[in-house]
């Protein structure tokens, strides 16, 4: 390298040092910074299970599963019925037994219609041993 070349190099260095660094536009900077993240998220996490890129909604059931799992746990807990529910159950039972009673009475009446009042007693006496709810109509009848 001769003297002229060295002078030329020094001149270029001087000129380059005088140049200011040009700033890239903000939008371009943001876009460039986003590239590594996008490349990472596009890669399938379990390539043997999902060979292609995962659609975004795939994660929705997973997020929904958390509150649902909590709800299941809460609902599976044995809950003590309230006094109102117990009273309702008692009334329901009363209605249920009233229907049993009604069918028993109706059956007793049917027996009487078919075979007559006298024979009804002997039939119903036998029946009442196994089905006491037919007894009540017999008691009402005798009173």
């Amino acid at each position, binding site marked *: 390298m001769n003297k002229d070349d060295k002078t030329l190099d020094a001149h270029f260095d001087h000129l380059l040092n005088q140049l200011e660094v040009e700033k890239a536009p903000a939008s371009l900077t943001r876009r460039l910074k986003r590239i590594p993240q996008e490349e990472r998220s596009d890669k399938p996490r379990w390539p043997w299970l999902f060979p292609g890129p995962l659609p975004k909604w795939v994660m929705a059931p997973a997020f929904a599963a958390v509150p649902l799992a909590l709800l299941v746990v809460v609902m599976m807990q044995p809950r003590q019925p309230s006094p109102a529910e117990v009273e309702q159950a008692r009334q329901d*039972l009363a209605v249920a037994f009233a229907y*049993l009673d009604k069918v028993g009475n109706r059956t007793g*009446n049917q027996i009487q219609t078919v075979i007559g009042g006298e024979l009804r007693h002997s039939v119903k006496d036998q029946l009442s041993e196994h089905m006491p*709810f037919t007894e009540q109509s017999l008691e009402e009848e005798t009173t």
Partner: protein
Amino acid sequence: MKISIFRKTLTLCATLLISLPVMAQEDTLKDFPGYVDFGELSSIFGEPSVQISVGESLLGLVGSLSASEDPEAAELFNRLNGVRVNVFETTSMASGAIDFVKDTSAKLSELGWESVVTVNSADEQVRIFMMINDSQVEGITVMAVEETEAVFVNVIGSINPEELGKVMNNFDININGDDSEHDEDDATE
């Protein structure tokens, strides 16, 4: 579109969760020999006017709460596993009702239920069945179908019929809202 699928999934999950306890209760009752699956009653009789299903836990609580005032009832309730009632109000004998009662009766007989009472007429069908194992009543099933009403009752559990009669007498309830039953009795006398 994606939101719609997500909402549908959530709705489906929520529906399943809400129906879980009911299904669980029915499932536990199904294991008892005294349980009867009546099938799709509403397809023949329409919507029920009365539908009652009291499970074991509520029966136990009712039993323990009524122990002081009615020990016999408490004793009975503690041994019951479930009480199910379906009542349908009809304006005429529902189409297929008689066949349904006969088919169900045949199925119950095949399953080992003993027929206790049968009323078999064109305008009235009554069947009362009991499931008896080792001289112990484990279930009572009543099917009573007439022109204006269809009643299906299934009492599940260890039942002493004598106790049942006493407890029924203690319940003072008139489901007709009048004295028609008593009047009928008096009239036939």
